[in-house]
């Protein structure tokens, strides 16, 4: 087995976070595409609690949960391209926003895509509100952490291909509400690690429709 292995699913935005981090750090690893309908022994053994991808295996030892994996990658390979800032206060801010993305955006996404009527209307309102909060937090900075691409950028950028799907399901324009986020996403996509990892937005829409039924 390679020293570093990533158990992943090609379209997972959570797995993509790990791919981006590993690429930015210049860490060689073996990518292992997992069948989520028929989970492998390796996956079940590596993440017995949640049985989910992504799982990073380093020297055979599993690390689970994408944000925990990102932090681990940052701490295990500290010399190259730091993802979290050095300053504890700035680190706390980065963790706050990464949590916000995982809790708020992902929750709004689920509700937006799987509900109808009033519930969906509320989900749309909440999603726009959450995206605007992030747009405001980004402000006029190049990246969430300031000048350099970092932790929050990695956490959020893999959800940006889902904007097209949010727009289709919610009937709104992300750019209209959050122009800075859209510009930031384009800026991130100029990085090879990001361009290689992200799913094409139309493909995301196709997958979501298959998964949840057409809008």
């Amino acid at each position, binding site marked *: 087995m390679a020293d570093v292995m990533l158990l992943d699913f090609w379209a997972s935005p959570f797995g993509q976070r790990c791919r981006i981090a590993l690429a930015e750090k210049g860490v060689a690893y073996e990518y292992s595409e997992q069948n989520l309908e028929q989970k492998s022994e390796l996956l079940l053994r590596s993440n017995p609690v949640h049985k989910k991808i992504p799982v990073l295996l380093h020297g055979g030892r599993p690390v689970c*949960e994408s944000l925990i994996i990102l932090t681990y990658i940052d701490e*295990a390979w500290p010399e190259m391209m730091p993802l979290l800032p050095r300053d504890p206060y700035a680190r706390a801010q980065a963790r706050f926003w990464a949590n*916000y993305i995982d809790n708020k955006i992902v929750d709004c996404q689920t509700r937006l895509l799987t509900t109808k009527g009033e519930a969906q209307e509320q989900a749309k309102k909440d999603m726009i509100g959450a995206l605007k909060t992030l747009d405001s937090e980004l402000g006029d900075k190049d990246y969430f952490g300031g000048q350099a691409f970092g932790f929050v950028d990695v956490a959020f950028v893999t959800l940006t291909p889902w904007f097209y799907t949010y727009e289709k399901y919610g009937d709104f324009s992300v750019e209209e509400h959050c122009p800075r986020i859209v510009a930031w996403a384009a800026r991130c996509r100029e990085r090879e690690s990001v361009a290689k990892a992200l799913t094409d937005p139309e493909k995301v829409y196709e997958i979501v429709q298959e998964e949840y039924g057409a809008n």
Partner: protein
Amino acid sequence: MAGGDDLKLLGAWPSPFVTRVKLALALKGLSYEDVEEDLYKKSELLLKSNPVHKKIPVLIHNGAPVCESMIILQYIDEVFASTGPSLLPADPYERAIARFWVAYVDDKLVAPWRQWLRGKTEEEKSEGKKQAFAAVGVLEGALRECSKGGGFFGGDGVGLVDVALGGVLSWMKVTEALSGDKIFDAAKTPLLAAWVERFIELDAAKAALPDVGRLLEFAKAREAAAAASKDEFND
């Protein structure tokens, strides 16, 4: 304690998330100003310090706010690294394991437990209870692995996971009193049951954990109020 460090904790005594922060501050031997918030009438300072969620706990360090209990704990651990014990080990892999179990406590135990206690329907409550008990079972195994013979998730000493779980202990006892169920049953989860007894004897626990009797009265009063009207303890 480091000189010139002004620490202010915006909290509410019943909140288990606030209790976690108090535990960490006590473990580190740090003094702070304990500001009790009225959650039905939040202060300007709270709203300014946590504009996104408007929730407690918020730790204000030299005027700068840090939000979310587990983020606050890591912040305290990093800033006051040379004061008191470390909540996280130095090794990146062990840190990842600790963070994994902290997330597990929050997502798989605390969230279902809240649903058990405060769910709107019997079905919701029963589902929450089932999930909470399942999580306790898993945590027994986690404690066995993480303690490595020591008495805590952190090994020989208290760590991040101990504080994350320790923060909810008074509430677990309240839930046991209200429901008649034993959550940390020595027959089913002996390691956890022993851990509970060990944890509550810590000086930090004695300083930080809310009094179970007082919390029980609070819980009963809140249930009564909720039954009477649409009440939301929005911490």
